[in-house]
């Protein structure tokens, strides 16, 4: 079946990563017509919003997008393209799966956890004020509907994908009202899923447990800030941001993206590992029910990683982005 999907090539190394990933997707047999859209530095330099309205409308129309990494300009008044996409498309569920990849060195054997991070509220609402010249405040907004939909999403995904346990992560022992609301809501939602085990951990303890007893965890669900931090911690456990995929889901749309930055200092050098974006594309294929193509890419990638002959610099090799992609394509054929 042919699909249509929006492609945002992104900034820095984004275009060369997308080029590599598109070649692999083409070779996998997946039939995707790409609708190109822009976000990030290019529209910003033309004086347009960092995510032009056309891009938002295209994603709303086609429902699915693959996005290369984008640069968030540093400086007063600048906004993040990633956060803008999440807000404007109401992509409330950020999924960050982490697992031990064959051939990628990690001390965390058998790692296999899927993290769901709430994407639209908490301190990421970015509601901030100076109340006096010496005191600034940031509102941590946790809502019952916002908590409910992310926890339900995590449970639904866990059930649909044969997972056994969902763990809610919070700091309700200190933030008894805001994180307390998240935890209370999670407990209420959990009652609707008696077939799945549910427990909860305080976020600081969770950090320690993750790196000492990672096999005890299956699916994690967290408010925005804790989810942001723990998902990068977990990406490190997997082997680094160069291999960690991500997806953002709303009710109607989904945007698939590598979780690393645009690495502008490597732009045009054909150096960066495309695995994170490729695995994000695999998540997209599974979302589109293109299971065969997804399996084919994953198996070829695993074979290349396992052999270890062709590796990018982050995994101790010298292969370039395109060479690594070609090795995966060769395995598929």
């Amino acid at each position: 079946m042919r699909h249509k999907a929006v492609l945002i090539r992104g900034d820095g190394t984004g275009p060369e990563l997308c080029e590599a990933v598109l070649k692999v997707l083409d070779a996998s047999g997946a039939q995707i017509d790409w609708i190109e859209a822009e976000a990030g530095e290019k529209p910003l330099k033309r004086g347009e919003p960092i995510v032009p309205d056309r891009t938002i409308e295209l994603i709303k129309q086609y429902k699915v997008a693959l996005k290369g990494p984008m640069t968030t300009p540093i400086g007063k008044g600048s906004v993040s393209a990633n956060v803008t996409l999440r807000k404007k498309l109401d992509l409330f569920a950020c999924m960050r799966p982490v697992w031990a990849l064959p051939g990628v060195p990690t001390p965390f054997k058998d790692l296999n956890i899927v993290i769901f991070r709430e994407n639209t509220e908490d301190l990421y609402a970015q509601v901030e004020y100076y109340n006096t010249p010496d005191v600034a405040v940031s509102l941590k907004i946790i809502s019952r509907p916002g908590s409910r939909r992310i926890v339900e999403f995590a449970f639904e995904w866990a059930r649909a994908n044969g997972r056994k346990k969902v763990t809610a992560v919070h700091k309700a022992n200190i933030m008894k009202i805001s994180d307390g609301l998240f935890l209370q809501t999670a407990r209420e939602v959990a009652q609707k899923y008696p077939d799945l085990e549910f427990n909860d951990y305080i976020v600081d303890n969770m950090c320690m447990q993750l790196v000492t007893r990672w096999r005890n965890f299956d699916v994690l669900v967290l408010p925005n800030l804790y989810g942001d931090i723990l998902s990068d911690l977990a990406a490190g456990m997997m082997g680094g941001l160069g291999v960690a995929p991500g997806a953002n889901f709303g009710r109607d749309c989904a945007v698939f993206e590598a979780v690393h930055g645009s690495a502008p200092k490597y732009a045009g050098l054909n150096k960066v590992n495309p695995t994170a974006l490729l695995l994000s594309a695999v998540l997209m294929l599974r979302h589109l029910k293109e299971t065969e193509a997804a399996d084919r890419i994953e198996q070829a990638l695993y074979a290349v990683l396992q052999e270890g002959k062709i590796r990018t610099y982050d995994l101790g090799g010298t292969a370039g982005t395109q060479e690594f992609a070609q090795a995966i394509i060769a395995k598929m054929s």
Partner: protein
Amino acid sequence: MKLVGADVYLWSKEVPTVPEQIGPFALRFISNRGTRVIQPIAPHAEFSDWWCCRYRADREVSHDDVHSLLETLSQKHVWTQAQKLFEINGANAYSEPY
């Protein structure tokens, strides 16, 4: 610090209908959890029942002006929190929504 406006947080099931102008203040936007909602966003975006209405003047206002703003809004709405907006050295001392 120069007082220039207020964010008034209203408790409402729907996007509240509020005056565009109250005294020296103009309504700049309504947001929900940091996301601007006056312009339509996601087709089925979901919101909480807590809406931020930003009223900003184009000059320095008095604290009494803010009290009057609250009194006017109170006639038809329930506000649960209000935050005065300041400029510090000519720069806005508050964030903007997405």
